[in-house]
């Protein structure tokens, strides 16, 4: 087991009026690849946002420890600077902000990434080429008018520029055609290869996992982590779905399970 990078202990969280996550325990070691799976509405994306510190969600109990530091009460910007990256399922449009200005600003804030404009431009150009992105995107407003695939590529571009210690990819594969999926997969591979960062992949689609060596698989049902195991669990879920896990949770909670 690699040294622990992310440790979630007894975490319960939700919105002001609705509990969503219940008593979550999860650990990700440095450089490991974990997959979080579960049916729609299970709370997978919520977990990603809670790890990132999204103020929409309130933590009612438990802790999030990252790289040896308790970050449970830390603001999202501080968590980002500490090395956590959340790739959005639906990246937000920010009118009025050219992509270049945004990328340059978020990199210059990090002492380890600070560089001259020309070197930065060169680095961005290399990554965009890898992601098959036209450089004209740099002068367009952040995500405004971008297709779903283009937005996901911009997320990958940020991932490769920021080189975080932990990347949480929230359904990065959703809504992508075959070509875009292939390019995004290459981006994830490049992150693993060049940055040696840890990955927590939230996904329904096992195709994006084909090129990755998955260390652990977690299954979430109705806000509970109900199973954890090796990569082989993914094939089992592919064949049989989440029914057994849903029934198991219902049974453990004393609910009647229909045959």
């Amino acid at each position, binding site marked *: 087991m690699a040294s622990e990078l992310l440790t979630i202990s007894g975490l319960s969280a939700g919105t002001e009026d609705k509990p969503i996550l219940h008593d979550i325990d999860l650990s990700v070691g440095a450089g490991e690849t974990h997959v979080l799976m579960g049916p729609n509405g299970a709370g997978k994306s919520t977990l990603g946002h809670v790890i990132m510190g999204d103020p929409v969600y309130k933590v009612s109990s438990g802790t999030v420890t990252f790289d040896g530091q308790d970050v449970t009460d830390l603001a*999202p910007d501080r968590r980002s600077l500490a090395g956590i990256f959340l790739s*959005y399922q639906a990246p937000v449009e920010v009118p*009025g902000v050219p992509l*270049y200005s945004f990328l340059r600003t978020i990199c210059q804030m990090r002492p380890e990434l600070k560089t001259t404009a020309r070197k930065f*431009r060169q680095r961005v150009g290399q990554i965009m080429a890898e992601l098959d992105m036209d450089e004209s995107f740099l002068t367009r407003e952040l995500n405004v008018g971008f297709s779903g695939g283009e937005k996901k590529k911009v997320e990958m571009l940020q991932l490769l520029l920021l080189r975080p210690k932990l990347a949480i990819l929230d359904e990065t594969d959703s809504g992508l055609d075959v070509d875009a999926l292939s390019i995004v997969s290459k981006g994830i591979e490049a992150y693993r290869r060049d940055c040696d960062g840890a990955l927590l992949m939230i996904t329904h689609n096992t195709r994006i996992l084909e090129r990755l060596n998955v260390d652990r698989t977690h299954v979430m049902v109705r806000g509970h982590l109900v199973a954890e195991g090796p990569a082989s669990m993914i094939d089992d879920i592919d064949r049989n779905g989440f029914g057994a896990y849903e029934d198991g949770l219902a049974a453990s909670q004393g609910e009647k399970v229909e045959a």
Partner: protein
Amino acid sequence: MASTSTCLEGTTKAMTLAHVNVPPAQTWNYLKIDQIALSVPVPTSAGTVPTRLPRLFSRIGAGVGTEAVSWVEATTGDSRYVEVPRGTVREEPIVLSCDADAGEVRDSGVMVRGGATATIVLVSHGSGDAEGDAPLSPTPAATSANLVRVYAEKGATVHLVEVVAMGDERQHLEGIGLVAEDGARVDARQYLLGGGRVAVGFEADLAGDAATLDLDSRYIVRHHEVLDVNHAVLQRGERTRCDIQTSGILADAGQKTMRETIDLRHGGHGSKGNERETVLVTGDDIVNRTLPVILCDEDDVAGNHGASIGSVSSEQMTYLADRGLSDAEAEALFARALFDDAVIHAPEQQSLSAALDRAANVVGDDMAHDLASGLGIEPASADDPKEE
């Protein structure tokens, strides 16, 4: 009615233009939004001064009002007239600049003949940033003006870029008038980047069928600056379309008044007008006035307006926070982005230099040149563009 009043700065006599930027439909007086008054130097020309441009241009409104137009015509020493021949594509931008430091008052007319394409660049630039944060009221002697009227004939395409960038010791009057005949298309980008007291009028008459206007207006108002804007679009032709997007930053004790009028006239069947303003407020002592109006005298038309005032959406702020930006840093990004966008869309050297010079004053020299350096669009040191 203009009135002569005081004597300032030695021999400079001043007069007041009492009704600048009056919108097509006015509202309650007590809101103090119906016009701005400017104290300006008395023109040296006496009596009625005939316009030096072809007569056609005297019928084009420029949003600032007839009183202000008459003052410009009487004050300017000369007028500039440019014609783009029928069916041609003019590659070189038409640059209509105004040096605010020299107190220039310019009056220009551009005729874009049928089917022709042209890029028109208005650059009103100057220095003159006062020391310290004390409120400042520019003197009439520090007044400049740039008045441009454009006639786009049938099927013409006009790209318009406007940069107003000067220090807070300057007072500036800027007026743009446009007439678009059948099928003429106008896209305009306005960058209002500074000035102690700036009045900007923009009036477009979509007179022809299927004429279109896309106006993207961006501004930053800070310290004790006053920005007063009057956008007015008359949609008279059938199936005309106009889209006005305005966004800006109000900081410190800046004051902004934004009037946006879409006037869907009788006979303009099938026309659509859309206006939207977004304001990012970062100062505690700002004054933010907005007057969005849609006038309608036709059944078969659609008009929309909306305003988002206060701050960036929580989703956007969370996204930026997730990338490491605190609220203050995100606001600084928006300011930087405004100048970066002006630099990106500057079509020639004068507008580029004006945007960069102003950016250096507002966001700092390093940040101002960061994008230009990164994208390789630094201004050339020689071969300045030709002035029209």
